[in-house]
């Protein structure tokens, strides 16, 4: 393995005749520095795979993925979010469509009023048959203007699906979804005839619940991650790339990642530009996009971690 020395800007040695040609990586500026015998010559980096961009949803935008769950009983969805919207109904993620037949039961996450908690729907395909419950935990605590990590785990290994919501790596609530706990029915998560998942809204034309704020590092797992998994991913707020952390999501939107994510003109993703493609880095090729120009989220240089 080839390596070169690395220094912070402050710890970098003086460039002198004795170290002419010394080549280092400056960990402060992320540039290559070469000693010319009297000073440092700087070679700036042109791109990075660091997490430098997230998506901004303006209250009208939505990101349409091409990922739909297969027939699974256990499932995990997670994302980072930053919002100050505590007054509107919002839907950060859903596979619901109300175009044509009304389907909301595969998996939809909502805040249905300004003061409610999570309203989670799963386990059915029509409105009347879906499993849902309001007020599972306080959604507004996520909308304080700071970045927060949200993970919702559906563990169907028991008699009933256990729904666990994690905020910033810690368990906020965990309960079995059965009728005695106030859920609509006892159906488990099953992805029969699913729709593709959407972030930032649940529907284009009917009863929209658009999200206003930023989202980053959205991921789906067709399994129930453990509390330790979620804590490791949150990493004390330092986050981390899921693949680098050793996880294997079934769909993974890093957002603004070098080599794959693009602006609306096809160039490499950069801040201030609307999306063309937000790539799925799970290896399953479930890329995301938005066909309607006015609904396109925008890349923004604001991330929960870098």
């Amino acid at each position, binding site marked *: *393995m*080839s*390596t*070169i*020395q*690395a220094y912070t800007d402050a710890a970098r040695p003086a460039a002198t005749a004795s170290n002419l*040609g010394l*080549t280092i*990586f400056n*960990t402060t500026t*992320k540039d*290559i520095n070469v000693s010319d015998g009297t000073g440092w010559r700087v*070679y*700036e*980096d*042109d*791109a*990075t*795979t*660091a*997490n430098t961009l997230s998506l901004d949803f303006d209250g009208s935008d939505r990101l349409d993925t091409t990922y739909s769950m297969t027939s699974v009983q256990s499932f995990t969805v997670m994302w980072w979010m930053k919002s100050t919207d505590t007054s509107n109904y919002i839907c950060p993620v859903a596979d619901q469509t109300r175009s044509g037949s009304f389907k909301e039961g595969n998996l939809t996450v909502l805040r249905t009023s300004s003061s409610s908690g999570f309203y989670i729907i799963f386990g059915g395909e029509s409105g009347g048959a879906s499993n849902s419950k309001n007020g599972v935990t306080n959604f507004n605590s996520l909308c304080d203007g700071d970045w927060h990590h949200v993970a919702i785990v559906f563990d169907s290994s028991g008699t009933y699906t256990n729904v666990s919501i994690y905020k910033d790596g810690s368990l906020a609530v965990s309960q079995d979804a059965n009728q005695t706990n106030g859920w609509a029915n006892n159906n488990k998560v099953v992805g029969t005839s699913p729709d593709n998942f959407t972030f930032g809204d649940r529907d284009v034309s009917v009863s929209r619940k658009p999200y206003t704020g930023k989202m980053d590092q959205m991921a789906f797992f067709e399994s129930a991650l453990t509390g330790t998994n979620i804590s490791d991913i949150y990493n004390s707020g330092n986050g*981390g*790339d899921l*693949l*680098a952390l050793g996880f294997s999501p079934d769909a993974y939107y890093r957002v603004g990642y*070098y*080599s794959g994510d693009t602006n609306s003109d096809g160039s490499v993703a950069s801040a201030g530009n609307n999306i063309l493609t937000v790539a799925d880095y799970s290896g399953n090729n479930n890329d995301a996009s938005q066909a309607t120009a006015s609904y396109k989220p925008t890349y923004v240089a604001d991330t929960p971690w*870098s």
Partner: protein
Amino acid sequence: MFVLPTVGLGVIATLLDSSFTIEDTDTESNILSTTPTNPSGEVTIKFGTDTYDLYIYDGSAWYIFNNDS
């Protein structure tokens, strides 16, 4: 008559000591899919065989230096 230069070996040794070759070469996609473990105080550098760019991994992300030629 061949005369061994008195300072030649030293110069050669110095050149050999300071020579630097990037041993790790691969395509960009293969490079970016790896997460090398860096020795303390060092970073990994690789060369892209399809892009001719340089790639440095700082322990959390890759930094890309484009080939400008």
